[in-house]
């Protein structure tokens, strides 16, 4: 019984949150990695793209709810998601047309595109705040939990509870599906392969009759879909706030890079690496050990390797160690 309790504690505070957070990062990282893989730059505006898509979805959700349409136990936002994706598509395609295209045709160095994307980030930052403001917005409705901590305790009679949120489940599933689809798309379909060809050698792609404009458009549309989905799922699980979405950028980049830039599989792996290194290394084992060890050995202290103050430091340290052994990420990423 105690062992089960220990496992439940671990699941509740480490495994479930880690999985969910990892999947959230992974979804964001998929978008980043795709842009890097095909268009060959690190897109700093990704966090704000996510915020934009989410903002539009929130507006749609509010309209739906006002009209009395809901999605049963699932969050209404999922119905409004296509609207958000469509709007984000327009936004990123417009950005590409007005901004990025110029540098692409000029064959500007990747770092210029990175800086340009920072400019775009600043602008999107303003737009998002203009549309929806700066406050914290909670737009999750429907059934919040699949299992609540209390419900679990009552059902199992254990001392410890286990909570699983609906959004956590959805996020993990969506992330895995998105990764599989993207992997299949890039490696098996004609359009996908032409996208990889384009990213490899643009001139030669042209000579093979690949339409570069089309490749770029498809890339952005997929990115828009991924970014919006990621943003909405994250917002449903936690809450929406423009500033936080901007802050999400760093862990997302870390995930994409540690997994190997350009690799969908890597994005997923990277997301989980970052998430679990944040959650596990600073975990205090007191409670778990308290169940496992005999009474007299149960620890007084927290049994914590590092205080949570260092949670980012530790996750970055792990990232660096991974890179030292795998210099282009877990799944052999690209580098420009």
């Amino acid at each position, binding site marked *: 019984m105690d062992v089960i309790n220990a496992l439940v504690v671990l699941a509740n505070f480490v495994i479930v*949150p880690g999985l969910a957070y990892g999947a959230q990062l992974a979804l964001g990282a998929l978008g980043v990695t795709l842009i890097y893989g095909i268009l060959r730059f690190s897109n700093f505006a990704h966090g704000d793209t996510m915020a934009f898509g989410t903002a539009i979805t929130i507006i749609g959700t509010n309209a739906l709810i006002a009209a009395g349409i809901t999605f049963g136990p699932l969050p209404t936002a999922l119905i409004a998601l296509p609207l958000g994706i469509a709007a984000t598509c327009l936004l990123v395609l417009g950005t590409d047309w007005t901004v990025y295209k110029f540098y692409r045709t000029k064959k500007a160095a990747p770092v210029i595109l990175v800086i340009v994307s920072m400019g775009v980030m600043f602008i999107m930052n303003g737009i998002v705040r203009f549309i929806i403001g700066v406050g914290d917005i909670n737009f999750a409705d429907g059934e919040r939990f699949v299992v609540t901590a209390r419900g679990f305790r009552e059902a199992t009679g254990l001392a410890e509870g286990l909570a699983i949120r609906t959004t956590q489940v959805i996020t993990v599933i969506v992330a895995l599906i998105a990764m599989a689809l993207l992997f299949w798309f890039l490696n098996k379909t004609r359009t996908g392969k032409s996208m990889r060809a384009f990213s490899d050698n643009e001139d030669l792609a042209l000579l093979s009759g690949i339409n570069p404009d089309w490749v770029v458009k498809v890339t952005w549309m997929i990115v828009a879909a991924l970014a919006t989905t990621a943003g909405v799922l994250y917002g449903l699980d936690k809450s929406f706030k423009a*500033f936080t979405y901007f802050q999400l950028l760093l862990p997302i980049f870390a995930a994409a890079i540690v997994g190997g830039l350009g690799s969908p599989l890597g994005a997923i792996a990277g997301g989980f690496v970052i998430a679990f290194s944040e*959650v596990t290394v600073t975990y*205090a084992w*007191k409670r778990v050990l308290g169940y496992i060890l005999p009474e007299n050995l149960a620890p007084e202290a*927290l049994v914590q390797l590092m205080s949570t103050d260092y949670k980012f430091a530790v996750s970055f340290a792990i990232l660096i160690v991974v890179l030292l052994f795998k210099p282009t990420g877990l799944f052999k990423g690209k580098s420009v």
Partner: protein
Amino acid sequence: QDVKIGVVLGFTGPLESITPAMAAGAELAMAEVTESGLLLDGATVTSVRADSTCIDASAATAAAERVVTSDGVTAIMGADCSGVTGAILQNVARPNGIVMISPSATSPGLSTAEDDGLFFRTAPSDARQGVIITNILQDRGFNNVAVTYTNNDYGKGLADAFQAEFEAAGGTVTISAAHEDGKADYSAEVGALASAGGDVLVVAGYVDQGGSGVIRAALDTGAFDTFYLPDGMVGSVLNDRFGAELNGTFGAYPGTDSPGAALFVTMAEGAGFDGTSAFAPESYDAAALIMLAMAKAGSSNSADFKDHVFDVANEPGEVIYPGELAKALELIAAGQDVNYEGASAVELIGPGESAGNYQEIEFKDGVYSTIGFR
């Protein structure tokens, strides 16, 4: 004559969601005074907003310098975060001899900063709050608590002050873990907090920032269900965001049973912002103090009125509440003393900071309400 007052707050950055109400509070007071036409023979008061960014000391300094030298403000209402407040004080206010009243910088370190008598705050130092929290917890019989704080001078200062006080009073702090604001996920912090255990979780953070994130995660995982909420955590958004989930949670934030706070809320409603938003009342008071001191000195020059801030804020004199600035100006014009209470029961002590009256709140039926004063 046109008197200009700088409103230097973090309109962008981590506090961007509470600063609009703070600025609105300050500007409400200015509008009130302008309308009365009683300051310095009918002077108008205009606000000049500048962005402190809350975190970028250099940008904050440049912005403050600009409002002083370019816009010609004669006093500053701000800044918000203790870090930039210190920088502006040293690099702009002191060199230019400009009075600065911060509504929200609560770091204990600012009490001893050199200020040439130019710096005041309508918020209490966090050293005081540590005592209040200890008292409230122990009165309710909690002796075993966990603490999480936002990792800045406010959070850390408050957490340290509280822990020292609480332990001296015989309580146990099982863990004191920092959380960073604006981050994506707080599972790690909640994991550690849950493992350490405790009857109550003291959340020394911001309601619009990581503080809420930690509460959300703690509630969802069932790690804690009772929280103590210090000043930065009390805000009406809690009602919408958590509602009944927080029933039983309690806390305290600056305020008195003086009718000022309630008055202010109604006034704010009329002006179209939320008067209960954190530090909005303090902002109104900071601006009001500046203008009353000007009236008292008969000059909008900082060098002249800096010595009158204490006079108008404290006894003796007729008590002044929000919305009564015209009355106060009349009294001052008539040569009488005023004792500005304002929206947050201002009472300046020692180095020019609020004495720290707190109102205790508790959640019941999904909303919090004031249950007493300390």
